[in-house]
């Protein structure tokens, strides 16, 4: 089998904030095309700082990053930002234009997509997110779930190769949570998810990257991670107490029954 070159490769990345906080202390990571990565770690372990290096929002003090074969340097930034779609936690920060349409068009316009293709892309992204009727709506009039979807549409319209999500399901009710999880799980891109919500990580990602204190602590498969109680607890992801209420209520069983019924008819 021929060895594919990684879509993202990070070598020995160091970064210190202007105020003196050392955020990254030598990160090494490669991600292959098509992988879905869960990036977990305590608050302040450097997850958000790391992903903001991928498209050059922060520039490391030392080390090198390549994205799709391109080194992340000034000349390539515009191309790389077209390759990476980044969804921020608070959709209010991502929707800064007067209308949803303008917001979805913002990325492609900056990538110099021409007028006809632009309209098509915007329509397509809005349709995918089920927001066709709200294109001309100011984003402050949307519900929180709609805002989250609009924020995703703004990066879909850029047709990226890699999508990065920071806490995609925070603050959503279970219904919207399921909708967003479903959408993310079915995206045909390389994905990186930062989240405290173990179930969504479990559904979407196959591989887990654990960060601690500016370094990569461990890289493992989702199955291994989820059974490692100690690691889960260390990263504030221990889910056990929620299980108490699953206990004794065998929902899975019940669900199977419902499905069986529908098959027999």
């Amino acid at each position, binding site marked *: 089998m021929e060895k594919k070159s990684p879509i993202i490769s990070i070598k020995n990345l160091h970064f210190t904030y202007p105020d003196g906080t050392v955020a990254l202390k030598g990160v090494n990571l490669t991600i292959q095309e098509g992988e879905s990565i869960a990036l977990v770690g305590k608050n302040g372990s450097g997850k958000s700082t790391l992903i*903001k290096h991928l*498209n050059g*929002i922060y520039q490391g003090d030392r080390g090198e990053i390549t994205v799709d074969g391109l080194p992340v340097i000034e000349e390539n930034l*515009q191309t790389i*930002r*077209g390759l*990476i*779609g*980044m969804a*921020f936690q*608070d959709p*209010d*920060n*991502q*929707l*800064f*234009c*007067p*209308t949803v349409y*303008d917001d979805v*068009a*913002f*990325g492609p*316009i*900056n*990538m110099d997509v021409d*007028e006809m293709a632009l309209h098509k892309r915007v329509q397509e992204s809005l349709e995918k997110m089920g927001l066709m009727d709200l294109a*001309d709506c*100011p*984003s*402050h009039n949307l519900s929180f779930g709609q805002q989250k979807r609009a924020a995703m549409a*703004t*990066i879909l319209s*850029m047709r990226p190769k890699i999508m990065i999500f920071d806490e995609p399901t925070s603050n959503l009710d279970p219904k919207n949570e399921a909708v967003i999880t479903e959408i993310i799980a079915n995206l045909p891109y390389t994905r990186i998810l930062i989240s405290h919500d173990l179930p969504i990580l479990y559904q979407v990602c196959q591989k887990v990257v654990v960060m601690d204190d500016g370094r990569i602590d461990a890289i493992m498969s989702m199955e291994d991670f989820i059974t490692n109680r100690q690691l889960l607890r260390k990263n504030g992801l221990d889910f056990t107490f929620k299980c108490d209420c699953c206990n004794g209520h065998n929902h899975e069983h019940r669900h199977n029954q419902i499905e069986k019924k529908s098959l027999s008819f």
Partner: protein
Amino acid sequence: MKPDIDRYWRLESPIHSWDPRLKILTLIILAFSISSVHHISTAFGCLFISILILQLTKIPFSFSLKRLAAVTMFVGPFFLIMPLTVKAQSGDTIYFFTHLKFLEINTRGLLLAARVYLKAVSIVLLTVPMFGTNRFDISIKALERLKVPNSIIQMLLFSYRYIFVFLSELKRMSLAMKLRKFSPATNFHTLRTYGNFLGTLLVRSFERTEEVYHAMLSRGYKGILKIRFEYRAKAADFFKSSLIFMAIFGIIYFDRFFKGF
């Protein structure tokens, strides 16, 4: 308080269909012409023209009337102050009280205040047809086509967007304070509370700006906001503008050469 200038932009009227560039340009010239008026009779004429334009928009008059509250608050005191403070000139009528000699009421002051008020109201009423008949962002985009620098346009659009975010933040925070039995009064506790409150809003906004800016960079922002604007001026648009210019000419002629009444 919630900005609701956008409420009626979907109506259909000759003013709504007017090219926003010509509309804003023409009406701002009209506003300055009204501001230059010297005679109270012309000021009444201006008010008439403003109301006429306003009626053409089909926007309910009561909506525009609400916008007069602020003007009334600022100019209202003139009606009290000016009759008492205007220097007497020949031809003025002055009332005074036999026992309070220092209290002289000059009717010319009252007229001056009325003139200022009429002019202010006429101009304020014009902002409704100017900016209330297009979606706010389209009006602002029109300003870019009128050669307002891109940097200013960007900042106007972003500020406008985040005003709503902070308004709802302010609303939730002041409700939380009210529920903790805070009732503002003229004392140090109130001022300290507001000072801290303001500081909190600022800190939170600064943290937000960082994220917003990063979100923009991620989508390829390079310092210039590319603006799409699809209007084309037609003959009807120029016709509407020339009608207003005739009105402007009428106002100036009546005020300067006919010397009003």
